[in-house]
């Protein structure tokens, strides 16, 4: 058995339902972690953040990929997850001194992450009611407005969020192993949704909304379901980020983050789960490489410009990203034809 990439060549029927996509991607991520642990320990922290990115971008892909609507607002769900985890896991004593206004709820770390995901899903369920009636660009802009609303709430609800200075002393930390495990969970959730009847109906509507309606697909409802699922996963990633970084502020979840994640999904390929994962890995690699360049040349801006160039080149040369509609799968030698 070898991991191969199924190309969508005419003779090869792409079979995205292949069961082995999630195991293959989990194995790929495990290998990356193994290499980092053994050979590049100085990149352990970067790798943990990359896995946070994997969870986020995979979550965003489950909406953008299946619905065909790009979202510029999913970082808002990440913020909700991050603040939930911070508020529920900052030690009692620290909280009393630093953030006396915060609610006195304490949760064990894994539960805090799930709570963040659930809260993000709840918000998505509510804002999705009006938002998911919009089509195409209007829907994308609507998600952008959501991002701005959540950003400003985080900035101004000082008592709960710590305001613009943000939150610190989220003590737990996030190990590489835990980050890897959460990535696998995220992949499994998103894959299961994608393979469900709901995911299939939404992809049909993405391909042709009129034909989908003629077959009884309730498009707004299907989009809404997808929005909630993806918000849950992105909420999880926010909790992971809070644990991994220990401190953050509202601007951690605003334009720079949004641009970075959108770039990852575009470059990797928005229609593919494998594309989401590869987008995070390749852009992280690019970003770390450009940081070295920045340090060597004293020129700050190389990272952002380089990432923008990557997005532009992808849009021009390979509009569906590295992966197109293909997925990584296990196949016996020869089976992939």
């Amino acid at each position, binding site marked *: 058995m070898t991991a191969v990439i199924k190309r969508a060549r*005419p003779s090869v029927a792409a*079979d995205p339902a292949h069961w082995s996509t999630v195991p293959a991607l989990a194995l790929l991520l495990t290998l990356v972690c193994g290499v980092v642990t053994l050979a590049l320990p100085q990149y352990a922290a970067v790798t943990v953040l990359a896995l946070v990115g994997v969870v986020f971008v995979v979550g965003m892909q489950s909406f953008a990929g299946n619905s065909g609507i790009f979202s510029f607002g999913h970082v808002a769900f990440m913020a909700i997850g991050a603040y939930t985890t911070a508020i529920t896991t900052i030690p009692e004593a620290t909280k009393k001194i630093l953030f006396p206004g915060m609610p006195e709820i304490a949760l064990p770390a894994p539960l805090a992450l799930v709570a963040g995901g659930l809260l993000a899903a709840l918000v998505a369920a509510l804002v999705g009611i009006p938002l998911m009636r919009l089509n195409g660009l209007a829907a994308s802009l609507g998600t952008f407005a959501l991002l701005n609303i959540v950003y400003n709430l985080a900035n101004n609800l000082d008592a709960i969020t710590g305001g613009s200075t943000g939150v610190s002393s989220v003590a737990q930390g996030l190990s590489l192993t835990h980050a890897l495990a959460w990535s696998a969970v995220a992949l499994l959730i998103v894959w299961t949704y994608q393979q469900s009847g709901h995911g*299939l109906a939404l992809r*049909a509507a993405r*391909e*042709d909304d009129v*034909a989908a309606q003629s*077959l009884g697909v309730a498009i707004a409802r299907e989009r809404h379901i997808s929005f909630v699922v993806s918000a849950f996963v992105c909420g999880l990633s926010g909790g992971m980020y809070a644990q991994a970084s220990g401190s953050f502020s509202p601007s951690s979840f605003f334009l720079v983050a949004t641009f970075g994640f959108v770039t990852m999904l575009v470059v990797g390929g928005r229609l593919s789960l494998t594309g989401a994962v590869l987008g995070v890995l390749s852009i992280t690699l690019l970003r770390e490489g450009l940081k070295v360049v920045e340090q060597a040349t004293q020129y700050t801006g190389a990272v952002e410009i380089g990432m923008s160039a990557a997005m532009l080149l992808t849009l021009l040369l390979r509009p569906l990203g590295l992966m197109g509609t293909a997925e990584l799968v296990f196949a016996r030698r020869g089976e992939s034809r």
Partner: protein
Amino acid sequence: MTEDILSATGLVRRFAGVTAVDDVDLSVRTGEILGLIGPNGAGKTTLVNLVTGFDRPDTGRVFLDGHDITRLSAAQRSRRGLVRTFQGARIFGRLTVRENLVVSALPRLGSRRRAESRADELLEYGEVTALRMTPGERLSAGTQRIVGLLRAVAAQPSALLIDEPAAGLNEVESDQLSRLLSAISENMEIGMMIIEHDMKVIMSLCHRVQVLNHGRTIAVGSPDEIRRDPAVLTAYLGSSSGNAHA
């Protein structure tokens, strides 16, 4: 009257300048194939849009199995058993042929597994099983029509409206499609309405034919009656389109 699976009364649809559908009645019984013909621009597609909920009539009502469905959305009508196909096949390009059918079978059957086995049955029935894993966008125009029809049938409609199934097909494909249509009509509890310019298809398949011209019904009757109807002959000969190979 209540035997009609599908009926419509007094449908009117005005666009700026034209009344595309002008006081049209319609009735289709289970087991029947009704042909809807008329010169280009006669209002056939508009009528199908009104009946299936893709457009709203200015006045008039639509009934499915005795229930007034005039106010339901297209998707709601479809889930109740009123399904249509399109002048272009509108296949889901990046879904496989099988997935195209599964999407359609899902609302009725609920479970993914049952929808899949229904899809497989129909692929067999339409002799396209070999293409089940092919993305829709890779099919020829003729095959897309056949898959589009099978996809509509996968929804298990009680009434099926088919817009120009044979347009652009060659003789062989057109015959294959006609056979499939009559097999569907004979083997399933279904009322069908077919829009078609190819008179050979209409005359061989339809039990009854309704003729539209300038948005109005000018004749309804058996294929033989329609062939001899003076008003129909005038409409076709008088129109510049002359599309009817009668």
